[in-house]
């Protein structure tokens, strides 16, 4: 079961390999983000260099999938053929206080018409798309 109907663009790692550890991690059910080995700064989305100390020595660290809703939106108008009969859905931007307040996007599971509370606690849910080509796993969110 996936929150959105199948057929949306499948995420694949960039040709240069920058974000491959993230997408490989989600297949294992692990949330991997970047942290600078030199100064400890957390970073998301992935980049080749630490924005704080400019070191190229970035590591990938597994973090707990817990956060709070920073912002949200509810799309109604379908802009992609796969969303045609979808109805509204919810997208949340979640900040991770235990990882430098980096933010991650995802859908908020549950009733697509439910009220959404900014600052509410949420936890990650791994949503595999094994039949997609190529297969991938999305990180979704539900109220904690």
């Amino acid at each position: 079961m996936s929150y959105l109907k199948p057929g949306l663009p499948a995420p694949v790692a960039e040709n240069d390999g920058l974000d491959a550890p993230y997408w490989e991690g989600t297949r294992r059910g692990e949330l991997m983000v970047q942290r600078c080995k030199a100064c400890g700064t957390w970073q998301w989305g992935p980049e080749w260099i630490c924005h704080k100390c400019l070191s190229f020595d970035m590591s990938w660290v597994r973090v707990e999938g817990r956060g709070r809703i920073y912002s949200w939106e509810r799309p109604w108008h379908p802009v992609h053929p796969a969303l045609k009969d979808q109805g509204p859905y919810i997208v949340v931007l979640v900040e991770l206080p235990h990882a430098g307040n980096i933010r991650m996007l995802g859908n908020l599971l549950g009733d697509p018409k439910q009220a959404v509370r900014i600052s509410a606690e949420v936890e990650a849910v791994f949503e595999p798309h094994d039949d997609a080509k190529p297969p991938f796993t999305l990180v979704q969110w539900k109220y904690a």
Partner: protein
Amino acid sequence: MTDRTLRGRVAIVGIGETPYYRHGKSPDPEFVLALKAILAAARDAGIDPRRIDGFASYSNDRNDPSRLAAALGLPELRFSNMQWGGGGGGGSGAVANAAAAVAGGLADCVVVFRALAQGQFQRFGAAPPGGVATGEAALNAPYGVMSPAQRYAMRAMRFLHENRIGDGAQRAIALASYAHAQKNPRAVMHGRPLTAEAYDASRWIVEPWRLFDCCQENDGAAALIIVPAEQAKDFARKPAYLLGAALGSEYRNGARGHNAPLYATSSFTTVAPHLYAMAGVKPSEVDVLQSYENFTGGVLMSLVEHGFFKAEEANDFLVPENLLAPSGKLPLNTSGGNLAECYMHGLELQVEAVRQLRGESTAQVRDPEISMVISGPMVTPVSSMILGSAETL
């Protein structure tokens, strides 16, 4: 402060537009639209188009300056430039680039243009089917975040939440644009007035934005001709002098995956101070404002960041009577703008800013001396500019 400036160095002496069409309805190919707008601007300036020696555009405009120069038979091409990225955020940036080229002696007569025929090419507001998403798109598209509205609604939602802004503020922006379009026969939404009730009853595109909070998609082209200020009085029409222009965005605004530290902004917090410093103008001195509306929430944030009111004053300031020409405190989007005149990717706002200084708008403000444009809220880079009459120099 620096004494390097564009203030008073160049003037806009010609404006041109094609008729504006609903998206996909242009009878002409995009390149023809570009040519027609450029020739209209030359005609307006009273010059032989062969006097043009440079081109500036933005947002991946597909009409290559070398091809334009060849088609127009220009004796020589001296300047060609495209403002990088940022969609409509490049509108004032393209004018700034053209101005810098003229002021710096790289060219003498630069045309700023933008042309769109979305039937010939891809629509902005729709995504192609299937496929894969890489890089930043991989963090958005699989969650159903693909169109510009979906991309930016969360920025505005956070701003509305932080500042307790009610529904009326965004609605007032839409109502003002539609009210102005009813006076403008060029406007695609001319003859289609909007009421508060119709706004409230309209469908959601993506909460917090309804149908009337979102710009149109259109076909057409617009162009402006920029020359050195010392030559401006030799042209047929009253010149609009560039007093200031600024472009860019804040610290890490382009961080991927919605990680800009100042998320709830329209990206102008660092740009606006540079604009006012160059122009030597205060927000209270602006007589008429055109503010790019991809979405009303972005206009709201832009007005705050350009100092027209504080975020906590938005509910009180943003009522239709304050935004209407000629008597409002801040007449806004007096041609109808992207919402109701035409979405010429915001270049129609530059044209309207010039028209106001000439006294030729269909929603004319009384004797304006300072006419301002804000381009492309929430994207990066963004840009804005201030024009003045000869009296302001």
